[in-house]
């Protein structure tokens, strides 16, 4: 048996003749007229819907179409027409739940009205980071924590211990009764870390049931808020410490809440005090008693405010009684800065717990106004002198707290209240600080409508107090969000810019200018924008001031390009490019270029040939490209290439193909370091060639033929400069196809030859997305694709028959394939398919205006003989390989490979040929011999053969089928 099989190796490679047309027709699915029955899985729900629809259609269209055709509407749209099934389902839900749902939603709405702050309220969390970043210090800070009882230092108990033991014990438990800690000379970062540690020890103490210790930590922390040394750090300190207070408030609330939960029921979110059991109430009361006895005012205030929410457990009116009392309590705080932050905290807690209690918020605001004069009093002035802090840097320390209080008060406040607040602020002398907070906190629409008033007030402000540029900045921020009255717009800009342009300090200037660019872009033309850009350049160029202000300058650029989507207008802003020149640090420059390109890609709709745009963007792209070096990350390169490609795709000179090509030539020289760009260029040039062909309707004139050859040459010389091997292979193939389509036969041959000679260089492993993978499957894919093209490539008159195929076969033969792999054989099987297709009288497909081998040789017997010889060789190779697979571990492969070879012969071979017939029978046995094959596949195959045998001219298959036994597995 074995011998017999191999003896057949010399069998003639007889291909069977194919009638592609007939086969295609028979393969095609039977055309069954579409019928849409009434049944659809989603339909039952909408029976009524579809009925009414039919009726209406009958009524409206008087077409004679039959009922079946009238139902041939798009099935998807007909189903989805009308109400969607889910909401229908919801609507038909039983009335009880419906009522409940409505009830719920009504309740929810009621709640929305007063007790829930909407998303339009900027939460504290978003201010936190900003404050921490802005209020910093390089001075040394100190933390003084005294955890003792009020009676005094209980040092006696530990005095007997040796010093060493004592310090060790203190380290172990910082908050033991009587321990005192004074940490001096802390840097800001140390301070932040220490506070974070305190926050952690609070949580730990709580978790280990040391409630008293937790309370002590909180009291000590809030005490730090009465310390105003290193005053410029105070706002940040406030943020850090109130974090701890928030934690504490949450812990206490949750603890008492959990006490209300008995085995049966959980307290609802909106409970009333009657539902709270006595133990929980008693615990809650205990907390309040304990806090009420805290000696010092500031800790007592903060700690009580932090557990304000717990009043809910005791009585319905608890919070509404407590808030006004705490508000009054703040009046006892002498230091105006400490006091305004205390108010900010109270408003913060108030907004969270009971935002509907507006009265207290308002009282905080008006109380603050009453104490405003203190800021300029002796006590504060003496303190500033002592700390060496100037008024202009002291006043902005108030802003975060004031902004917050103002924001809380003005949230959804009636216009009348806002006006009253503003009037009250106006009356106070030296009110720049107030003015600034009004502008930061009030609705932008309110401010914008009164822009001219505000400008007037800003001008009147005392020069020595709050910095004016901050005021203009705040106003600008409002105008970026809301529009002032049409008639005032230009005057506002003029008035504001008059002041801004006079600012001496470049930092102050740019912070202000940055904000106003938005307003200018929004309401004015490129002329005004140009003026502003020119002014910025003028201010930022001396002493290279721009080096310290890249973020602001970047933001200006972003705002400008966000408003000028039309790049021809943008680049006609004279100062735009000079402005770009200020970005001299490369990384920033590239960032800016990227922004520009992103906007261009996003907004440019039409391809362009505008020389201004092209020049400018080429320059921008070149900047990006030139930033690439050996250290550039892959992702970055990909991003840059994506942006540059986006630009290249948008450049079109219309019918001026020559210009287009010379643009591609220029682009190639500019962007040679980015492979994806070169790939894009090759594709673009190929497309250009095909466009030309389309315009000439396939008949090139002498001129266009030359042009197309130039395109082909472009590709041919560009491809070798690429690194990716499969990129090159595929581009060779692709460009070869384009050359063939444009009747550049010798050029096409050159591409294919180049591809063939590149195949031996394919490494075994290639890098794909950073991972090494075997390349064989990619190679197989490429070669199959290649074979399909080779079918139609006509033979060169000076070379032998099928020289390209032969050459490729040699290369495949010599390629070092992975051991234990069958890829080579799979390729050979594909070659057999190719050869079979080549031996047909008329090929399956052609390229327009190119004569393939079928018409060149016209079925010449010599050609067919050559073809057969090749087939034989290839088959011999396959059989040889099958022989080597007779080993135990390879039997499975042998079986499947044998079957696939059998299938190939079945599909492509002429089985009337006896030897081929015998070979196929042998392969059938081989596939089944070791029981490795899937019986179902074999059954299916046999069924297929039997079915095929019924086709005309296929009768011989009946006999074959009889010779193919099915092996039952034993």
């Amino acid at each position, binding site marked *: 048996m074995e011998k017999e099989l191999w003896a057949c190796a010399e069998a003639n490679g007889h291909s069977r003749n194919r009638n592609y047309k007939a086969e295609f027709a028979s393969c095609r699915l039977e055309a069954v007229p579409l019928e849409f029955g009434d049944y659809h899985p989603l339909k039952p729900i909408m029976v009524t819907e579809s009925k009414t629809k039919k009726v209406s259609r009958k009524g409206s269209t008087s077409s004679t179409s039959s009922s079946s055709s009238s139902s041939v509407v798009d099935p998807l749209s007909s189903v989805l027409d009308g109400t969607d099934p889910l909401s229908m389902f919801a609507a038909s839900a039983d009335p009880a739940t419906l009522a409940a749902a409505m009830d719920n939603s009504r309740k929810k709405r009621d709640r929305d009205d007063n007790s829930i702050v909407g998303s339009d309220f900027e939460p504290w969390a978003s201010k936190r980071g900003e404050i921490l970043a802005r209020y910093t210090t390089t001075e040394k800070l100190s933390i003084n924590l005294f955890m003792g009882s009020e009676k005094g230092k209980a040092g006696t108990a530990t005095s007997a211990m040796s010093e060493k033991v004592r310090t060790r014990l203190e380290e172990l438990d910082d908050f033991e009764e009587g321990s005192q800690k004074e940490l001096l000379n802390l840097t800001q970062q140390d301070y932040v870390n220490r506070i974070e540690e305190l926050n952690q020890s609070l949580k730990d103490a709580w978790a280990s049931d040391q409630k008293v210790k937790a309370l002590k930590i909180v009291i000590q922390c809030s005490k730090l808020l009465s310390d105003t040394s290193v005053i410029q750090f105070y706002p940040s300190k406030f943020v850090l410490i109130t974090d701890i207070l928030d934690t504490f408030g949450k812990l206490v609330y949750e603890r008492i809440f959990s006490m209300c939960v008995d085995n049966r029921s959980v307290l609802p979110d909106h409970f009333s005090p009657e539902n709270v059991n006595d133990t929980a*109430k008693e615990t809650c*009361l205990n907390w309040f*008693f304990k806090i009420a006895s805290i000696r*010092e005012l500031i800790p007592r205030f903060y700690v009580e405010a932090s557990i304000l929410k717990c009043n809910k457990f005791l009585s319905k009116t608890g919070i509404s009684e407590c808030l006004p*009392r705490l508000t009054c*309590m703040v009046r006892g705080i002498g*230091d105006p800065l400490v006091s305004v932050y205390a108010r900010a905290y109270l408003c913060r807690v108030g907004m969270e717990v009971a935002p509907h209690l507006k009265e207290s918020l308002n009282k905080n605001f008006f109380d603050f106004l009453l104490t405003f004069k203190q800021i300029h009093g002796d006590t504060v002035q003496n303190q500033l002198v002592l700390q060496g802090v100037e008024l202009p840097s002291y006043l902005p320390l108030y802003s975060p707290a004031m902004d917050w209080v103002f924001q809380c008060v003005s949230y959804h406040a009636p216009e009348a209240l806002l006006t009253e607040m503003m009037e009250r602020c106006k009356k106070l002398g030296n009110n720049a600080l107030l003015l600034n907070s009004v502008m930061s906190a009030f609705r932008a629409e309110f401010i914008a409508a009164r822009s001219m008033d505000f400008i007037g007030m800003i001008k009147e402000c005392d020069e020595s107090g709050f910095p004016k540029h901050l005021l203009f900045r705040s106003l600008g921020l409002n105008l970026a969000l809301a529009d002032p009255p049409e008639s005032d717009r230009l005057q506002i800009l003029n008035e504001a810019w008059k002041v801004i342009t006079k600012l001496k300090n470049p930092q102050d200037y740019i912070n202000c200018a940055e904000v106003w660019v938005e307003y200018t872009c929004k309401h004015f033309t490129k002329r005004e924008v140009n003026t502003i850009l020119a002014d910025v350049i003028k201010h930022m160029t001396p002493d290279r001031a721009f080096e310290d202000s890249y973020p602001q300058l970047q933001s200006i650029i972003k705002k400008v390009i966000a408003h000028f989507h039309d790049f021809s207008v943008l680049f006609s802003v004279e100062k735009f490019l000079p402005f770009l020149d200020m970005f001299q640090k490369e990384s920033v420059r590239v960032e800016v270029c990227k922004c520009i390109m992103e906007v261009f890609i996003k907004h440019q709709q039409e391809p362009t040939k505008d020389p201004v745009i092209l020049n400018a963007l080429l320059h921008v792209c070149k900047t990006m490209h030139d930033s690439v070096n050996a250290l550039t990350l892959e992702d970055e390169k990909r991003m840059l290439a994506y942006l540059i490609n986006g630009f290249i795709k948008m450049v079109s000179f219309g019918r001026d193909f020559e210009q287009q090509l010379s643009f591609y030539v220029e682009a190639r020289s500019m962007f040679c370091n980015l492979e994806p760009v070169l790939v894009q260029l090759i594709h673009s040039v190929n497309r250009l060639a095909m466009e030309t062909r389309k315009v000439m309707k396939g008949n090139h004139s002498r001129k266009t033929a030359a042009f197309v050859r130039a395109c082909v040459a472009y590709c041919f010389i560009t491809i070798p400069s690429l690194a990716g091997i499969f990129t090159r292979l595929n581009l060779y193939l692709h460009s070869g196809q384009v050359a063939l389509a444009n009747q550049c036969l010798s050029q096409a041959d050159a591409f294919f030859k180049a591809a063939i000679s590149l195949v031996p260089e394919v490494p075994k492993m290639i890098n794909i997305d950073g991972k090494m993978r075997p390349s064989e499957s990619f190679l197989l894919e490429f070669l199959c694709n290649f074979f399909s093209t080779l079918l139609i490539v006509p033979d060169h008159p000076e070379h032998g028959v099928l020289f390209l195929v032969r050459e490729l076969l040699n290369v495949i033969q010599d390629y070092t394939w992975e051991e234990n792999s069958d890829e080579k054989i799979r390729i050979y099987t594909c070659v057999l398919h190719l050869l079979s297709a080549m031996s047909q009288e008329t090929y399956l497909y052609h390229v327009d205006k190119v004569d393939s081998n079928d018409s060149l040789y016209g079925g010449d017997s010599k050609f067919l003989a050559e073809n057969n010889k090749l087939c034989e060789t290839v088959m011999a190779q396959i059989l040889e390989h099958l022989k080597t697979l007779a080993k135990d571990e390879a039997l499975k492969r042998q079986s499947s490979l044998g079957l696939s070879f059998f299938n190939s012969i079945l599909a492509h071979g002429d089985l009337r040929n006896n030897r081929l017939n015998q070979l196929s029978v042998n392969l059938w046995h081989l596939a089944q011999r070791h029981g490795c094959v899937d019986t179902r596949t074999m059954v299916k195959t046999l069924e297929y053969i039997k079915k095929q045998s019924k086709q005309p001219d296929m009768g011989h298959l009946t006999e074959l089928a009889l010779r193919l036994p099915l092996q039952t597995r034993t």
Partner: protein
Amino acid sequence: MGTTLDIKIKRANKVYHAGEMLSGVVVISGKDSVQHQGLSLTVEGTVNLQLSAKSVGVFEAFYNSVKYTLRCDMRRSLLAKDLTKTCEFIVHSTPQKGKWTPSPVDFTITPDTLQNVKERALLPKFLIRGHLNSTSCVITQPLTGELVVESSEAAIKSIELQLVRVETCGCAEGYARDATEIQNIQIADGDVCRGLSIPIYMVFPRLFTCPTLETTNFKVEFEVNIVVLLHPDHLITENFPLKLCRM
């Protein structure tokens, strides 16, 4: 863990009045069955009279020396220890019948109103005005009022409320009087704004106050001091006797 005893009184706040029933449960928890020879409950009321270390024959304090405890004993066999658990509870005097009427008091403090001043001329000028809503207080309600610093030459350091308990014990040889500060609450910190009223607000501590008591042999009374500290080192005190009652 062996066997444990626990007393659980029904009222969470453990406050009872004369004539009321104190009820609750004794919880015995243990791994195995517990043998015992009887459980007994005892109520004890004690007054601890502490002699002062400073002056002979003077009691240190009455307050906080009155104590009511409920004790539960479990007698067990010879081999096992007897178990005991005690639980303190509080007895409040029966609320007084009748209507409580507030007795407001206004005050003004200037250098001229002060007594015990050595050199009046050295004092900085100031004017502090205010009022207490009532000097007769319900013990469960806070002491309230207002205070305005109308003017002050010197910067204010702090304003505090000092609650003092005065105990007087009389007998044939005379009487002993003892004042103890039981709570100090700061109501102003730093140089407060002039002309702006500052709230006076103090919660009476539950464990350290009781209704004002006056018998032939001893008295327990309360006073509040408003203490103003001025820069650099002036201390001004204004005293108000209080009458506490339970309603």
